[in-house]
């Protein structure tokens, strides 16, 4: 186990290094650097550009130094909690990110749980009652779920609710609670709004998992040990849940790590459509206005969290399944 853990941790460090390079590339890609954008921004708003301030900023980001020095300055800054500055918001990137990230994590994790809680029982049912009406329904919903991208589903749901009931299902809070401090009522309001992004983002993942769960369970159902359990006189639900399902669930659980990037990715764009106060809309806005330190940091933090989540799921899996530790 210790061996496995060290190996995984080393891999994760390599991955994190790669992610930091990708994010830094995204920051560097637009023509010009942070300062030229900043200066144009200042000039556009009519502010007099202070030469001394510019010089100190140039010093701070090492903009007159070669690219690897800039990278080094940037990455060490992050370790000290300095992500750079967003010139659009005139605020430190760290503050902006910490406002949005927790809710993003919460929604992603909830969606992940929702996906599995829904997919596993449906998959089992679909396999046990193969070719029944319910099975066909599950297959149908599965195909639809895979084929309708989250942002289109969000759009259609928004339209349908707006059209039929005249209500908007966007956002995470009603207007009354938007800026209110946390309270029980605000929490309830959040729960009322939360199901829409959960369903929309979780739909495609659920569909895929149902299909896998159904296929793996079907593979196991015909095997001898299942017949054996049945002939022992076990009640049918016990036969199914204690034997084939235990085996069939393994590939499902082992893909938790792949599901997470998909959910984070899906949440980003669905959040734009539903205008949720999480990272998606802010990232888009930052990209559109070339506020690159903010955008790059968002991409970096989303990826880092995904990698950490994947690591946690890998460790949990190693705890559950001893075969993985031995590999």
């Amino acid at each position, binding site marked *: 186990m210790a061996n496995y853990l060290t190996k995984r941790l080393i*891999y994760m460090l*390599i*991955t994190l290094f*790669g*992610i930091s390079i*990708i*994010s830094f590339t*995204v920051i560097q*890609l*637009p*023509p010009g650097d942070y300062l030229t954008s900043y200066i144009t921004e200042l000039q556009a708003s009519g502010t007099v550009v202070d030469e001394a301030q510019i010089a100190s900023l140039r010093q701070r980001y090492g903009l007159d130094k070669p690219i690897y020095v800039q990278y080094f300055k940037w990455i060490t800054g992050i370790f000290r909690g300095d992500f750079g500055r967003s010139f659009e918001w005139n605020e430190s990137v760290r503050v902006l990110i910490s406002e949005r990230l927790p809710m993003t994590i919460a929604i992603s994790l909830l969606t992940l749980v929702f996906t599995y809680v829904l997919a596993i029982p449906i998959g089992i049912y679909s396999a046990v009652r193969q070719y029944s009406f319910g099975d066909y329904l599950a297959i149908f919903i599965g*195909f*639809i779920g*895979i*084929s*309708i*991208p989250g*942002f*289109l589903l969000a*759009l*259609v749901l*928004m*339209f349908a609710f*707006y*059209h039929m009931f005249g209500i*908007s299902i*966007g956002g995470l809070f009603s207007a009354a609670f938007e800026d209110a401090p946390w309270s029980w009522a605000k929490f309830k309001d959040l729960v009322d709004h939360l199901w829409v992004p959960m369903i929309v983002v979780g739909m495609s993942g659920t569909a895929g998992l149902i299909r896998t769960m159904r296929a793996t369970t079907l593979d196991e159902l015909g095997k001898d040990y299942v017949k054996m359990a049945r002939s022992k006189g076990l009640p049918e639900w016990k036969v199914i849940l204690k034997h084939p399902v235990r085996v069939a669930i393994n590939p499902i659980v082992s893909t938790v*790590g*792949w599901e997470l*990037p*998909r959910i*984070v*990715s*899906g949440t*980003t*764009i669905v959040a*734009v*459509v539903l205008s949720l106060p999480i990272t998606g809309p802010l*990232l*888009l806005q930052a*990209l*559109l206005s*070339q506020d690159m330190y903010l*955008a*790059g940091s*968002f*991409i970096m933090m*989303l*990826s880092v969290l*995904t*990698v950490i989540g*994947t690591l946690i799921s890998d460790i949990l899996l190693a705890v559950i399944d001893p075969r993985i530790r031995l590999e």
Partner: protein
Amino acid sequence: MALNDTSPEQQKLQVDAGIENETTERSLSHWQLMWRRFLKHRLAVFGLIVIIGLYMLAIFCEFFAPMDPYVRYSQFVNAPPQRIRFVDHEGNFSIRPFVYGHKSTLDMQSFRRVYEPDYSKRYDLRLFTKGSKYKLWGFFPGSLRFFGVEEGGHLFLFGTDNLGRDVFSRIIYGSRISLSIGLIGVFISLAIGMLLGGISGLRGGLIDELLQRVIELLRSVPDIPLWMGLSAALPPHWSPIRVYFGITVILSLLGWTHVARVVRSRFLSLRNEEFVLAAYAAGASEWRIITKHLIPSFISYVIVSVTLSIPGMILGETALSFLGIGLRPPVISWGVLLEQAQNIAAVNTYPWLLTPAIFVILTVLSLNFVGDGLRDAADPYSK
């Protein structure tokens, strides 16, 4: 006389026939077997037909679109779809379908135009009509349209957008960009994936280890945020065609990992198979072994993985253009068309702005069906 009371000669004949049947069965090639298996998957066949149809629309969009997608009918801004009719307002039946023209009044309360059918203007629908001039693929001038109304009339099957352009024709034109971006992107991923996966699977060692880490890295990054970051960085002064290829490359940047994984694992498992070892023993060159023995034996798996990754590419382009950081007008793609649907109030008043979504979903659904059928068919010897 009992049915099974047959003479020895007849029995022999039947046996011969049986053997003959079996040999024809056996002499089917791998691809024929796959095709047979594929045909059994009804949904996949249905999907394939739809996909071929959609790609025909995309290839000959100038011919199939009834209207010019760039022309603004300023007197018909945000007009609703016209109904195709067989019965006119006086109850007379006509075998030739027709539409009524729009007549608009200004609603003084909302300051919006309200449209109703103008019964005095009747436009017959005709097959192979002469419409406005176009240049097929940008080269061949023509004016023949698959269907449409006579000159001077207008046909808005899916209504018009906020500049008075025909949504239906724009969808048909948009299919060319939206469908081809997935295909080109997949070819780029295929080339990179085959090459890197092959090297990694054959050589193993350090290169393999390195490649595995790169793949793991790319798979752990959430794709949409990264795509957004990269495509927002495409310079705004680029020509549409460069942006198009830029987006394609960005989409393939993550796409090749799937192909590389499939190829690598196939190489690893086939490397020590007897037929490969036999070829080595016979003195075949490595290149010959790869191209003659290895690739043919796993190409079907690669095709499956490629088919299943086209929808992701199409959706990627749609999502990016929808957000306004992918392709930009005047380029027409489904994502660009859907950008207008971002405003939910606009969608509520003009629901036909959502029609491009139907085409996106139809395409992705069909491609998934085809991929599913191909997956079953990829290994025709199982069962």
